[in-house]
């Protein structure tokens, strides 16, 4: 599979590594909105997110000569931002002497777009059910779904951001989709779905 945007970005990245900062400024413009949106899922402090975005780019400029090549610039940036934000949050928590496990939350509300341009009552009813079902998924699953269907990341990139293998990323996403599929297509093809799930897990073991 050819992915033009990925190729373009890794070329820009190379340019930047050679000392051409225009490359980085283009990468910045291509990704800053995605970074911002992703970052805002970890904290309501938007200024913190903006500061962290600036910090990761400053670090890139300062460590330019030590950077390695990457095919997945967007994934790399998201991962760096996530690490930075969580570090900052933990620092703050210590400072405020709030004792927490260090776990982070990925807050997301999948409801907000379901009313877009759809007058189909059945669809609305399903959207409501879907929303309820999504309440119960883990924040890790939410994060994977967000990366996949809002930022368009590949499984390899999602795995990188979540510190998983790409098979596990696939499984994580599949489970959530499966849940929703049962709502959007009740009764029908249940057996087939079970079979395909079985096949998917089978493949997983096979690949390990």
């Amino acid at each position, binding site marked *: 599979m050819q992915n033009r945007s990925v190729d373009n970005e890794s070329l820009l990245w190379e340019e930047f590594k050679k000392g051409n900062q225009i490359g980085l*400024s283009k990468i910045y413009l291509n990704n800053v909105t995605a970074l911002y949106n992703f970052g805002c899922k970890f904290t309501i402090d938007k200024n913190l997110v903006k500061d962290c975005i600036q910090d990761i780019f400053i670090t890139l400029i300062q460590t330019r000569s030590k950077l390695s090549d990457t095919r997945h610039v967007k994934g790399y940036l998201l991962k760096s931002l996530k690490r930075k934000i969580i570090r900052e949050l933990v620092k703050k928590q210590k400072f405020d002497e709030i004792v927490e496990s260090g776990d982070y939350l990925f807050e997301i509300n999948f409801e907000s777009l379901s009313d877009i341009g759809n007058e189909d009552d059945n*669809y609305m009813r399903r959207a409501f059910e879907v929303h309820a079902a999504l309440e119960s998924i883990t924040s890790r699953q939410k994060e994977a779904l967000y990366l996949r269907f809002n930022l368009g990341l590949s499984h390899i990139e999602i795995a990188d951001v979540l510190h998983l293998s790409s098979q596990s990323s696939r499984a994580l996403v599949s489970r959530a989709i499966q849940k929703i599929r049962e709502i959007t*297509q009740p009764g029908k093809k249940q057996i087939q779905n079970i079979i395909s799930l079985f096949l998917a897990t089978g493949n997983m073991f096979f690949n390990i």
Partner: protein
Amino acid sequence: MDKYSDYSAIDFLNDDSFVSWIMKTDINAVKYWDEFIKNNPSKQEEIDGALEIFSHFRVKHEKIPVEELFSMWHNITNHSARKTRITALKMLKYAAIFVVVFLTGALSFYIFQEFNTREFTIAENAQIDSEEAQIILSNGQSVPLYQKETEIKYNPTGEKIVVNNDTITQKRTGGDADMNRVIMPFGKHSQITLSDGTKVWLNAGSQLLFPSTFTRKTREVLLIGEAFFEVIHNKEKPFIVRTEYVDVEVLGTSFDVSAYTDDKYFETVLVEGKVGIEEKKERFLSGREKIILQPNQRIVINKVDGDRKVSEVDVSVYTSWKNGMLKFESQNLDIILRKLERYYNKKIIIKDALLGGYKISGKLDLKNSIEEVLDVIQLTVPVDWGKQKEGDYFIIKTEMPM
């Protein structure tokens, strides 16, 4: 194709290329899946299922205002400059380059925002192939343009578009998002008649963004690159050409705007009527100055230091390209070669930078091949040209006979 024959909705959503298609982040994937759906009606049900699931996972998308994007980048570059040891001179050079890139980026950003508000996909990540001549209609549909020269005409309602001899119809979505975009890569050019009758000659390597009809108080178009405008007079609705660096406002007139993002200069030449030039100073934020241009005047603004010069000129020199001619008066060789590069979509390398300083006056017929044009240049200045392995051309100093 076989690989997908027993794919379920879930499998499709796990396929990277399929997701690139839904999100329109990869032009190849878009082409592939559009074709796939046409050829595989039996998969329609599963694909619809996948699309519905996808729609449930979408969340509201927050935007950072453009000014803030600027100030953030400003902070990034300033901050790192302080910590790394770069000489003052180098810094100045970087700062200059940045301003240019900034505006370039911001412009395309602005375009994407305008362009995609009607869709809920993340537009900022979408890459549009600017190597291929095409019109992108207000519904996002892209129509490829194959000829070297294309004529495009919008009817007054903006619903019917004639491209050369073919007619395209589009449903109007209405509102601000109803934008069309014409992309001309290097080596191609086109003439566009907008819905108000205004004619635009779009030069090679340029893009024009415009609404199907002008419903706002002003008629606004966005230009990257160079275009010649013949604006239909309308007192109530001034015509504004927005570019990365300045806005040009007109009442009814013909003029040429050259605003290539990789050029150091912004340039406008007025043939007749009156135009006002408004500079977007200090990265769009503060202080706007308006300069009025009279017929036969040309303004050149240095995008780096803001220096600007207004002078009386022979306008045909600057507008001759639309008739397939390139005219110039004591113009530097490097600038002429740059124009040729764009027109023919070929790279011309000047081996000795000093050669770029030769001044040439005259006329080049661009209907000729690039080789013939280079031969003509060779007659007037002491240079030789040659062709490299990769198809690039180069210019060297003629060997003096000993």
